[in-house]
């Protein structure tokens, strides 16, 4: 393959790609369960950020957990994994924007990330965790290695 036609991007070892897919995908699947079981409580958790109005609050509380579940499974199974990496990355950007906004307004709230009640308080550690996950999803998005499915 000549340099002119070589695809640009990262070529990551298979084992590392698989590990990243399980970490990122598994985290999103785990995060979805509680929210799917109790969308009303998740809507309350979203409302605590005071960023979403009445027209979008419930549709978001209903849709986002299923999107997390679908993208998580797609990531782990290797089906449409780059599309899943793109969506997970976008979701993480939204989550990080919400966290930064809450921190800027000194809101003392739990993040609603994994459990609809209790859980992590919004803060720097949460932001760092999301940055780590975002890095993982970007790496998976630009990785040009072999597409592996089960």
């Amino acid at each position, binding site marked *: *393959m000549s340099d002119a036609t070589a695809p640009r991007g990262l070529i990551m070892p298979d084992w590392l790609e698989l590990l990243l897919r399980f970490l990122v995908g598994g985290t999103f699947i785990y995060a979805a369960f509680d929210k799917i079981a109790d969308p009303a409580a998740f809507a309350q958790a979203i*409302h605590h950020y005071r960023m979403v109005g*009445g027209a979008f*609050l*419930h549709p978001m509380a209903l849709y986002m957990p299923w999107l997390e579940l679908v993208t998580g499974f797609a990531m782990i199974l290797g089906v449409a994994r780059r599309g*899943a990496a793109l969506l997970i990355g976008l979701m993480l950007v939204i989550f990080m924007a919400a966290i930064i906004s809450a921190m800027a307004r000194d809101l003392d709230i739990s993040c609603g990330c994994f459990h609809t009640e209790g859980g992590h308080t919004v803060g720097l550690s949460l932001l760092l965790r999301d940055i780590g996950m975002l890095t993982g999803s970007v790496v998976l998005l630009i990785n040009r290695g072999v597409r592996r499915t089960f």
Partner: protein
Amino acid sequence: MSSNVGQVKSYPPKSVLREAATLLLVALLLTTLAWALRPPRLPLRADMALYELDLGFPVATPGEAVANYDGNTHLFIDTRAFTREGRRIPGAFRIRQDQFEEDLLEVFDFMAPEDPLLLFGNGNLILIAAVASRLEERGYQDITLMSGGLDQWTAAGGETAEADHE
């Protein structure tokens, strides 16, 4: 699969967008199915008044309250002043904000702290929450407030009886 190991694949940006759009649609389909098939359904438009109040107690819709009444799962507490209302929910105890001590004394023997209580009133959740807070101070741990008043209760299929006038 092993024959592919070591090969480098090209993914045009369009295919990534197509994959993302497919996943968005699948999630939308599952959301719609889950919402349609699994009651009680979260209303699509949120009543922000309920969120803004931050009452500190769970709020049940009149429909959920009727289901609790029919299932005999909760003790119903009427927080209204009876002189203003000619109807009541049969079997409901009366505990009013302005006569809290006297009313509680009358029903004290029938209410254990662990009993699930469902408080209702004229639809003003702040007034109902005021009674709920005082009950909570007295050790009652499982308190739910009903949104709406008796008109909404009746519309949801709940039964009423004539109130005793004072």
